[in-house]
């Protein structure tokens, strides 16, 4: 899915150096314009991010006393104290609202009658609150929030909407110069524009410690993202510890320390669930599988140099039955470890050179009547994989090449568009063929450049492609991708946030929320709020936050 990944065999230094030519493959450098100093002002929408659908903020202020204020289940809610997901969320948001100030000594004081907000009541309306479910593509994230004296009410059909509403509520509370917590009377009705709002993290090129992933899930919730696309393995390393095939990580991870055990994976999936975030793992094949070869003999195609094996290996070997036995067992495990209805199957950037060199593959091509069209061989492989995954009752997401090469796909396949040039044309094509699509192409956040590049991500309009209304409906969202060539735990958080926040608002808020100046004013504050909550989000431009980043 990214040009950078064409460079295989990167494990030697010379190849690593060659990869510096990536510069040319990345979008051309922006001209070094002197940044016009943006004037920081107040947005009428305060610090809300992403901006809700409809919003009315009244001038009347109410005060919250930390010692008295409560987050509670409201009357008639179908979720009660037995809903651990909400109980956890209440505690979390109480911390986010009050936790970072020295409030302990106040609160005994009586506030003038009629000026205090005493409670936030959360009311789940639907008979099934989905409290114990995993979120999915159709999860209802809508909510209504009404802040009036003396209690605020947050109504949602399902817990997922309540989570989004809690985040919004927490963003409405602010601290004045005297350390009082205030909120304006407000009415908010909100729901997402797109159902799939994802962040891709790559744990193969660099291993990311669990803590990095969890921190990132926190930040995702602050920005109303709802999908972690976990690009968990790739050429470079295989950190996923498989129960069925322990040798895969045993030999394919960087070291024994650089693995995700089943417990780790479960922790990520549960932590994400509690924040209304789906975890979609990607096990990319048949290309991008060098690291698989170390722990699984005969899985990869042996490349030939003339008549002899060269000692190097190419993509997965598509002509052996053992390959499909292996994949069946592996995906059976993956299907049960990851609860989401979708698995990302990759399918990008398959290099045919090795297949071409191999006489057994050539013979197989003849037998099958593929001639010398290796795309047919790739399709042959992918179709078998799709059948395997279907039989495990999972849906799948694939990178756009799988569609481009005409592989037969189930109608509910999601095609992820990633190739930077002409992506609008690709969106027309994919949706024209009736497939659901998600967009990543303009949001490769690993491509850094000097200056406020968040504006570029913010200005993308996902439905800006030629197509019928029906086609537009097939666009269900997008993903901000942070590939790992140059990213590990040392720089992940500041590189991702708040740049990904721009994508977050684009995918959540109305199409007409495009005012850059207003966005800047809100995003600056949102970034300071992330700092307070322990996310080392980098600055947008010159300035400061009252509470600078903790830690270091």
């Amino acid at each position, binding site marked *: 899915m990214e040009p950078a990944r064409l460079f295989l065999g*990167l494990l030697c230094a010379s190849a690593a150096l060659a990869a510096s030519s990536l510069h040319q493959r990345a979008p051309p450098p922006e001209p070094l314009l002197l940044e016009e100093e943006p004037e920081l002002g107040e947005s009428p929408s305060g610090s809300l991010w992403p901006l809700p659908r409809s919003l009315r903020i009244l001038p009347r202020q109410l005060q919250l006393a930390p010692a008295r204020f409560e987050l509670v289940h409201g009357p008639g809610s179908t979720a009660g104290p037995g809903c651990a997901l909400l109980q956890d969320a209440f505690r979390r948001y109480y911390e986010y609202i009050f936790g970072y100030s020295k409030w302990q000594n106040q609160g005994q004081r009586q506030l003038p009658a009629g000026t205090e907000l005493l409670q936030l009541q959360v009311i789940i309306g639907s008979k099934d609150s989905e409290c114990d479910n995993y979120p999915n593509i159709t999860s209802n994230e809508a909510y209504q929030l009404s802040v009036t004296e003396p209690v605020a009410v947050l109504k949602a059909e399902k817990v997922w909407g309540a989570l989004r509403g809690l985040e919004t509520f927490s963003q409405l509370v602010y601290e004045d110069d005297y350390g009082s917590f205030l909120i304006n009377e407000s009415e908010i009705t909100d729901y997402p524009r797109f159902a799939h709002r994802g962040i891709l993290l790559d744990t193969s090129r660099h291993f990311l410690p669990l803590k990095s992933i969890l921190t990132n899930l926190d930040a995702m919730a602050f920005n109303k993202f709802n999908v972690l696309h976990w690009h968990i393995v790739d050429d470079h390393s295989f950190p996923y510890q498989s129960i069925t095939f322990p040798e895969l990580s045993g030999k394919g991870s960087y070291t024994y320390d650089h693995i995700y055990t089943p417990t780790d994976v479960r922790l990520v999936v549960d932590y994400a669930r509690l924040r209304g975030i789906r975890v979609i793992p990607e096990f990319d094949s048949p290309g991008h599988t060098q690291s698989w070869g170390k722990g699984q003999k005969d899985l990869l195609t042996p490349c030939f140099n003339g008549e002899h094996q060269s000692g190097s290996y190419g993509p997965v070997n598509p002509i052996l039955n053992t390959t499909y036995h292996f994949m069946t067992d592996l995906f059976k495990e993956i299907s049960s470890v990851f609860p989401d209805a979708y698995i990302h199957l990759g399918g990008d950037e398959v290099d045919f050179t090795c297949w071409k060199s191999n006489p057994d593959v050539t013979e197989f091509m003849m037998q099958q009547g593929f001639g010398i069209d290796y795309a047919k061989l790739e399709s042959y492989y992918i179709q078998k994989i799709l059948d395997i995954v279907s039989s495990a009752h999972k849906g799948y997401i694939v990178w756009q090449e799988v569609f481009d090469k005409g592989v037969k796909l189930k109608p509910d396949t999601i095609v992820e568009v990633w190739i930077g040039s002409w992506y609008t044309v690709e969106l027309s094509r994919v949706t024209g063929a009736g497939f659901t699509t998600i967009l990543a192409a303009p949001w490769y956040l690993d*491509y850094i450049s000097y200056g406020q590049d968040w504006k570029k991500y913010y200005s993308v309009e996902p439905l800006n492609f030629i197509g019928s209304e029906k086609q537009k409906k097939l666009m269900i969202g997008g993903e901000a991708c942070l590939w790992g*060539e140059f990213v590990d735990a040392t720089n992940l958080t500041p590189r991702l946030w708040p740049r990904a926040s721009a994508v977050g608002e684009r995918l959540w808020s109305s199409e007409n929320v495009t005012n850059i100046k207003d966005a800047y004013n809100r995003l600056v504050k949102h970034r300071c709020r992330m700092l307070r909550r322990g996310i*080392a989000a*980098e600055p947008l431009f010159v300035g400061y936050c009252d509470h600078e980043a903790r830690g270091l």
Partner: protein
Amino acid sequence: MAGLGLALLLLGLVPAGAVWPQPQLVRESPGGGRCRLSPSRFRFGYARSSAVGPGCAVLDQAFRRYQRLLRDAGPRGPEDTRPWEPLCAELLVSVATPHCDGFPDMDSVESYKLSTSEDLSLLSSESVWGALRGLETFSQLIWRDEDGTFYLNKTDIVDFPRFAHRGLLLDTSRHYLPVRAILETLDVMAYNKFNVFHWHIVDDPSFPYESAAFPELSQKGAYNPVTHVYTLNDVKLVIEYARLRGIRVISEFDTPGHTHSWGPGAPGLLTPCYAGSIPSGVHGPVNPILNTTYQFMTELFREISTVFPDFYLHLGGDEVDFTCWRSNPEIQAFMQRMGFGQDYAKLESFYIQRLLDIISSYGKGYVVWQEVFDNGVKVKPDTIIHVWRENAGPYQQEVARVTKAGYRALLSAPWYLNRISYGQDWQTAYQVEPLEFEGSPEQKELVIGGEACMWGEYVDVTNLTPRLWPRAGAIAERLWSNKTVRGLQDAYRRLANFRCTLLRRGIQAQPLFTGYCDPEYSGF
């Protein structure tokens, strides 16, 4: 070094104990020879011949630091798995000149000789500053095998810097950097053998320097007068912390431009801009026509000259915008009286010259940005001209012009690390050759070094460290090592390895490319 064995798999052959920046001369004993090293039992000490001994804070503290780095280098290995191999006992340091308590300066001698062997390793140097560089090298020579045992190969090193001024600029005005971020940067500078911290302490956006003479400057000019300031104690801490690592601190109080934040705390200091015939309410550069301006500068720089012990002050002088001066009728009248006509560069020169006189009267030297030279301001012969402009023709030509005029030059133009781009941009910084310009050998002598600059538009404590390291390491090696040390592949191997060393030392240095370190960064 911990993890090196595993790193080998990844990086190809990193010579055991690779050093960054590369020393001038390294000779590993042809017959091999190595000793095991016990992090807990190994000792640093003074040789009998040394002119300094216990009580010398610079070295006493350095011993403790390196002892600690050694101890924290990873879980203790099975030290006695190879009892037949000799154990390294100690490193003795011998310094020739008996000076300990001073500050490093431009003429400090940083050369050293290091010879390691089984029973005794010896580090000798002219000054304590050289000893510091040698200790860092020594710490990088220690490596670790797959069993976790530490080793030291028998090695002889002769080393000295190629350039005397190897600096790093941090900008604490566009974003405030907490003192601990500055201190950590000083640590990493020492690991890279940088020796000048250029503290761009104030600028348009904020004035975090707390002045004793003019407390209003930070009270009204800092982002927050309590939390976003550097107190006198902070500044002293930074200076002493730097001294203990052989690093000079050169402060920059940039004028007459870049002074917006000075205005609120110093009424009348900045030029009132006019819209037509009335003041617009906006202010421009420092007002150069008032006597009060020079009285103020005299007082302020008197304080600064005392607080910052280095012989040099950086006076800025860059990017003066003439629009406001032009709009002001009193300035126009002054220009006429002085016979400057419409040439506002002359007015700028007038200001700068008076400022330089003030600084000179305090017995200080000065560094200025290149515009001061370009605009023909008369400067003292020992002025250092800081070449920074990327877009004003090739910087090599500017270096040629500056040195031709007999001034010393400091290079930053190709080393603006705040300018980020996708990929391994450290290579671009690494491939710069500072002496590659047309000029006589005498001119080349006048290039005293360079500085990596991390301007603060987009940088604060959240992203400073990974953005700075290991990218600034490329510049460190360019300024320290021999001119011939240019091979990218070799540099890649050593730098990737060095970055893992930084992680082990708790520094959040970002990766060069795909791969891993063992252990990874964990200091969340």
